[in-house]
């Protein structure tokens, strides 16, 4: 059993109005020193077997096919220790 994490973020050049709204809310809540916020998605993929090369390649394929829209989003894949 292993857990693989896929993080999906809007590409840097794509405007993220949700992140901007969060950034604007923070000072109102008393948090200072934040220059920007960008919001993304995190997927936790539970594998039935070990996170070997084949399994990771499969997760990459899932990310490429469904989890991210690579037209506007980037993704990263990592195994949770």
């Amino acid at each position, binding site marked *: 059993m292993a857990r693989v994490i896929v993080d999906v973020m809007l590409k840097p050049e794509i405007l993220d109005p949700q992140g901007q*709204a969060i950034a604007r809310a923070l000072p109102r809540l008393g948090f200072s020193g934040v220059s920007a916020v960008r919001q993304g998605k995190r997927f936790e993929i539970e594998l039935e077997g070990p996170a070997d090369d084949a399994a990771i390649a499969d997760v990459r394929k899932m990310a490429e096919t469904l989890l991210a*829209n690579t037209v*506007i989003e980037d993704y990263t894949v990592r195994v949770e220790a």
Partner: protein
Amino acid sequence: MSAARVGVVTFPGTLDDQDAARAVRLVGAEAVPLWHADHDLKGVDAVFLPGGFSYGDYLRCGAISRFAPLMEELIPAARAGLPVLGTCNGFQILCEAHLLPGALTRNASLHYVCRDQRVRVESTDTAWTNAFEQGQEITLPVKHGEGRYVASAETLAEIEANGQVVFRYVGGNPNGAMNDIAGIRNEAGNIVGLMPHPEHAVEELVGAPSTDGLGFFTSILKKLVNA
């Protein structure tokens, strides 16, 4: 000659299929219901992908619908030249399916926008807009929370250079779309997607802002009859 047959797709969560079918019938074509779970286009001459919240918009608008059994038939047929129109959620599905370039994202305002919207027809060289005049301004309802068209700088330059922008917002951009883009087409011109709703602007009786939407349906009819 038998009537032109226009398929109208229903996914779980589709809202505008009945209006779309009604608009198809108003111009004298036959509306053929198509079901998302069927591997069957029923031999239709064109397909309308209506708006709504297919599969609850889970993950991203159109991200799940794109893999529906019906789409496995529709995607190759559209690539081979079958005329397809996607409005609102239908436009989002066409982008997720990579039948059209770019993507639709959360409105810049973060608000759902529902209003009558003026758009300018920028391309009449498509299966769905040949009844309009180049530069004509029409009024259609918009109603969406995720209609901000975005694309990479290269894609944007390419579709502008190719004349693939079909509609541009005028009198205010409702969602922050790049270059005020309201609708685009593929290079061949058989596939068109737009955020506004032509199927809601076909009858004065229901308080529609115009009957400008009829032009989409007379366009496809003209295209099919002359084909």
